[in-house]
């Protein structure tokens, strides 16, 4: 039911963990629906230097989280904001239709983390 890429990211997830004193934190989903993703970012000069995730969820939830961290590392904020949930799913060679809706939240977590960083910056300024 899952592509080989999904299974690879599920079995060997990249960038698992939490960055200490992160520039931004994004958390989406809720336990009731079975998926929670938490993404932490380290941002320097508008570039994402490091990113880590922790996810409670199904195979698709873990694989999309892992994939988005790979896609975003080294990217500028502007480039990162262009990444969509759909693009993450495509990078994994697709997800089963039911998973597109419920477990494909990784880009949303990324955007939430960037927003958190932007809000902090505004507060500091």
């Amino acid at each position: 039911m899952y592509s080989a890429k999904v299974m690879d990211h599920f079995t060997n997830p990249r960038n698992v963990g939490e960055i200490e004193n992160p520039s931004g934190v994004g958390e989406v989903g809720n336990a009731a629906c079975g998926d929670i993703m938490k993404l932490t970012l380290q941002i320097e000069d508008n570039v994402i230097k490091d990113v880590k995730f922790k996810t409670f969820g199904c195979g698709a939830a873990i694989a999309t989280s892992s994939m988005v961290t790979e896609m975003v590392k080294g990217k500028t904020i502007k480039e990162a904001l262009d990444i969509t949930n759909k693009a993450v799913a495509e990078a994994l060679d697709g997800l089963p239709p039911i998973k597109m809706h419920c477990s494909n939240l990784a880009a949303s977590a990324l955007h939430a983390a960037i927003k958190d960083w932007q809000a902090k910056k505004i507060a500091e300024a």
Partner: protein
Amino acid sequence: MKRIYLDHSATTPVRSEVAEVICEHLTEKFGNPSSVHSFGREARESLEKAREQVAAMINAKPEEIIFTSGGTEADNMAILGSTEKYLGQGKHIITSAIEHHAVLHPCEHLQQKGFKLTILPVDEHGIVNVDDLKKALTPDTVLISIMHANNEVGSIQPIEEIGAIAREKGILFHTDAVQSLGKIPVDVQKLPVDLLAGSAHKLYGPKGVGFLYVRKGAKLSPRIFGGGQEKKRRSGTENIAGIVGLGKAMELAAQELSTEMPRLAELRDRLLTGLMDKIPHVKLNGHPTLRLPNNVNLSFQFVEGESLLLSLDMKGIAASSGSACTSGSLDPSHVLLAMGMAHEVAHGSVRMTLGSVNTAEDIEYVLEVFPPIVERLRSMSPLYNREGKAM
């Protein structure tokens, strides 16, 4: 790779003795039991022998057995057929929140057609309260349908008491015994049931065949019309190969019940206690003692069921989960939710159902492989450190 099948409540392999009689009736004794010639008579003989085998296992009379296409059809036949027959006597039916959808959905269908439907709750162990049933009874109640044992958590329902109440009030009582047959004794002389549904593929028979027991005197309107087979109660040329497979499987299950039941219970308890000892934050779902001898259902807090199933599958272990992510819907199992379980705990449930092929070695392998899988997923879970407290 070693493969261990722990999903016997989903389906079972056909045992070789059963496959043999099936094959014989596909190729040699292939006749239509309605034909007058020797081919037909031969098939008729096999059909009636199978009916006797099925009846013997549940201590019924052969004429009380109707063959169906499986447990789902038997449940539908019982609920839709009886309510239609007894329509003049009332339009209220009672069932429970943890029934299989083969019972719940026909009941809901009747509700849409104007019946009043009471869905009884269950306690935290997944057991119906007999007092709730008593309170739900009305003069208009025509049918009670409560399962014998639950398919997800294995909880055994008080159907002896429920049946006694139904009989006293003159209300028809149906039980779905698909999961209990072959695992615990099912005797219709001891259980006051009027209708009882069973399926072949849960007890090492083929898929696509089952039966409905209809106590002598209980009446059903047919749901399938045609050639008038099964005494006009279920038309259609009999699935003779499937039916003889069901008969043989039931006969063997009855013979082996007294040895298989304690063997499975011992394996179950080793698996249950082993996992609960080795892994923190694990909850047993279902009743601690009133449960099927082959059912293990546990919730692993802070992890999600499908991730667990995928990881187990990679180690060759086949199990199932009540998580939404494995059902194609957005909600976790209706059974676990009816037991009052929080959504996130239901999402972390895993069901392992044992069967004849499982050995003590299998259990030891599972106990070795399982804890690191949970540990790995928990290390990735944002819920784990935050609220790492006992459930």
